[in-house]
């Protein structure tokens, strides 16, 4: 559980790992507008950054939204303040993965899926979501 003191420590780690400063964001919402994942991502990028700005790091780390970012980089490319949410989401995921918690279990993949889906998708998916 993230307390307020380790909340600021977590935020510092997120900013270091991602190389982004959440204070740069002026909450215009362009990232949310352009995200191809759309409503399935909760919280969407601008709301996620808002949570970090308000110190609610734990709430973001516990959300499902950060696992749905495919790093397409549209958010960071169109942001008027050049804040790259994809790297922030990656930093959040990495913090969780490094504490030995997987999000996706490779054993859930079925044989037909393994047969059909290009393996580059599996490699990428497990690198991003599993320990």
């Amino acid at each position: 559980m993230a307390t307020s003191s380790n909340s600021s420590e977590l935020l510092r780690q997120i900013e270091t790992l991602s190389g982004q400063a959440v204070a740069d964001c002026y909450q215009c919402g362009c990232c949310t507008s352009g995200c191809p994942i759309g409503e399935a991502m909760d919280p969407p990028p601008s709301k996620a950054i808002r949570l970090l700005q308000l110190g609610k790091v734990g709430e973001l780390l516990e959300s499902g939204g950060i696992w749905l970012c495919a790093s397409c980089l549209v958010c960071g490319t169109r942001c008027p303040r050049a804040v790259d949410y994809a790297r922030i989401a990656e930093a959040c995921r990495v913090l969780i993965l490094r504490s030995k918690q997987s999000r996706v279990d490779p054993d859930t993949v079925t044989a037909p899926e393994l047969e059909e889906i290009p393996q580059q998708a599996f490699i990428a998916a497990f690198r991003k979501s599993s320990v």
Partner: protein
Amino acid sequence: MPNDERRMSEPRTGNPQSTIENRQSKIPRVGVFVCHCGINIAGVVKIPELLERAGIMPGVVVTKDYKYCCSDPGQQMIRDSIKNDKLDRVIVACCSPTLHETTFRNACGEAGLNPYLCEIANIREQCAWVTEDKDAATTKACGIVRTALTKVVEDQPLDAITVPINKRALVIGAGIAGIQSALDIANAGYEVVLVEKEPSIGGHMAQLSETFPTLDCSQCILTPRTVETGRHPKIKLMTYSEIDSVSGYVGNFKVKVRQKARYVDFKTCTGCGVCLEKCPGRTEGRFERGLTKGKAIYRLLPQAVPNKPVIDAEACIYLTKGKCGNCAKVCPTGAIHYDDTDKFVEEEVGAIVLATGYELFDATKLGQYGVGLVPDVIDGLAFERLLSASGPTSGEVKRPSDGKTPKKIVFVQCAGSRDSTVGMPYCSKICCMYTAKQAILYRHRVHDGQATICYIDVRTPGKGFEEFYKRATDDGIQYLRGKVSKIFRQGDKVMVWASDTLAGRKVELEADMVVLATAVIANPDGVGLARKLKTQIDTHGFMTEAHPKLRPVETLTAGFFLAGCGQGPKDIPETVAQASAAAAKLLAMFGNTRLTHSPTTAQVDEEICVGCGYCERTCAYDAVKVDPVKRKAVVNAALCEGCGACAVACPSGAMTHKNATKKAIFEMADSF
């Protein structure tokens, strides 16, 4: 310009202010006045120690301190000390000379001491404000006072130079800013040359339908001004003209104006408009923002001032291919002259107002918004033309693609503004208001139309603006907070990816038309002109004012004033206010008989000068020329801004800088 005005080697004598002998005495009597500036200086520099150490410097006969030297009692203290202590040099150790050098020099002048024998030692910005270490600050302050002492002892008494003023003004740009300035100056009784690059005057305001927050018809409030300008006996209106070059200096400018070939004789043309009906040549239609094509022979609008058409030579079939010639055939007065050429006119003026205005950022550069690819995505000025009664659709809101009435319009704010990644980190100021206005006007025309405005913030800082915003929301216009990321096509609809940050989710909107409030940028022609004239522009191309707070209508180049959006985005009330302010400043200048100019200029020792010309090549102000007959450099002291570059460039030492000689500067460096 009489020749003797240029030869400024000797200072003028007979200044009524110098009642005390201003010879340089062998043993100077210097007074050092230290200002506390509240705690700005006194909080860091140890004043008693500074006074003590200054008191024993050679030549210093009195030291005094005061809390605020710039105040009346402070200045009185200096004036009294000059008289009582018989001072012939003054040093004021205080803030930067850009603030109060004039104050203290005037005080000295009032006490009978030549103002140029007063030097400022900046112990605030250069000392107290850069450290918290009191000992280091005090030592540095002593050093600064010592260098000022070294200089002031070398200083010569100087008299200000005066130049005549040609009380005629030039206004460049005839949008509402230029028009307002020109009228104010002309109504004060002076002649104004008003130069406009378009065939008629009125600028962008002539393209608008109604203005916020009053919903006044733009033409109705503009045309009284344009008509008055057109017939004013003191305004020489030159339309379809551009500035080719400006030389000279404040009070005495020579301007070369290029009057572009119009191919229509203004004296014989009656403005009947028959030629406009028969022309087959087509242009991009800039005035209509590309919604329709224009004709090769055209006037911008039916109420144009002057109401005479011009021919766009590149679009004219006769001028490019030798065929057609319809306009000449139908013209009842024979006013079409295909053999017209550009003409150059020389004007002499004393002051210039720059009112070159704005443009809208080219939205095709925002690829994600699909302008030029997705039909029915247009910018704010184009929508204004749709709303305008004299526009391509006679004021009916229609989709450019198929002419149907749009039932849903999405207005996109901040298209390019507040975005450092496209080079415009600033807010364009007018868009929140004009978008609300456009949405209201759209709903007036299309009663069952729906308008959604996608915004980041709604900025309503003017009189009646917040109430106007409420009027928009009361009318059912939906404000959705979230910057639009993408615009694309779906069937014959336009889709918009926006978001509702207040509810925290992405929103996909379906619309019949999208209007982009694109960023306001400086008119590129104005930027080019500023470069030609060497007036200052900022990184965004907007003209730089002399001081952002206190001198918003002047520039650092004497004689040039600013008005309107060329200086920065602003709405019509602010433009008009600034235009009148620029006129007022200009008229204040014209209220003098002669202009004074600082005498700390360059001077040539003709016995040493060989006419090599390095100084001429170095000068940024065209103030030094080598006389071809005498082969000696000659300084035009009225143009010289005293930067000192020529004195540095001069290889023989013939060029020196008054009251900033090489000797003085080397000694100052040593004395610190």
